[in-house]
């Protein structure tokens, strides 16, 4: 029997250069056999009233504060003031979060999680491996800790629904 499934997934994140591609998170979140159910779940994710399961990362391959060639420069789908969504180059947490970078750090502290440490980069500039931190710290936290972090990253439109033929 061939049918169709509705997949809620992370929007595609184009990584400009990342030597360790395997640090990226999976992209598929959940499947539904009803378009309405998929849309409802997407709306709940967008409203940050639920958060996706732990393997899904909000920070993908994002690994820097200041632009530095060779460390995971990436693009995210950002919401504009008029409500439209556009793919933009991201180089700081502040672009993802209306709280600003310090506000995001405060949010991390408020849920009882440790912040990532800066590492020396290839050109001597320190960089912060936010992608590794999300996977190793946030990914192992509770849903009650993760949800406020997803909510803080409010400038990003993370998810979309796509369809795929299915053999049931």
């Amino acid at each position, binding site marked *: 029997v061939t049918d169709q499934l509705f*997949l809620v997934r992370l929007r595609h994140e184009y990584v400009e250069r990342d030597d360790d591609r*395997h640090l990226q998170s999976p992209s*598929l979140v959940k499947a*539904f*056999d009803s378009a309405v*159910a998929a849309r409802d779940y997407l709306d709940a994710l967008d409203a940050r009233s639920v958060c996706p*399961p732990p393997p899904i990362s909000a920070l993908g391959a994002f690994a820097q504060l200041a632009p530095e060639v060779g460390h995971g420069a990436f693009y995210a789908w950002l919401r504009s003031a008029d409500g439209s969504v556009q793919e933009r180059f991201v180089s700081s947490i502040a672009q993802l979060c209306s709280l600003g970078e310090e506000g995001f750090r405060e949010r991390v502290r408020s849920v009882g999680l440790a912040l990532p440490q800066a590492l020396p980069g290839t050109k001597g500039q320190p960089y912060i491996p936010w992608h590794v931190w999300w996977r190793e710290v946030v990914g192992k936290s509770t849903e009650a800790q993760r949800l406020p972090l997803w909510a803080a990253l409010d400038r990003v439109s993370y998810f979309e629904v796509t369809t795929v033929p*299915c*053999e049931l």
Partner: protein
Amino acid sequence: MARVQKAYVVQRLDWQYNDNWWDINELEPVKAFTDRERAERFRLELELEKRGDCTFSPAFYAGGLRRASSRSEAELRRELEAMCLPLPPLDQDHELDWSDGDWWRAVLALVADPSAPAYYARLTGKKLSPAMYERALAVSPDQLWALFDRLRFYELVEIELERP
């Protein structure tokens, strides 16, 4: 109350040339299954078909040995030697040139075609003993591709499927 079961989605990794090498540019869901074995059979079928079209070496395709294989260069070298397969030629810096397409196509031809002993001699300038040649011929293309495990064209993803 919605029922939750598993779905297995076969995704195509869309490698695109970026003026230097190929990069994964998009993940495209191709087909979903509720049976893992059927999904894996389908993924393998597509993977083998795509491998047949791939004429570049895995290291060139992926943009470097580290991006093509989870093994170190020393491990790859040991495994190829254990399979009695020729190593890549040396480049101008006297390093093994894993991106050499001629070497890759020749090694693939060697393991895929028992009537191609000339490849080995042409690549290495020496002949294998009959016993070693038997070992080389016993290697399947799958085993060779498995050395470069990070270069995949299709993946299988298990996710939750919610049904009413």
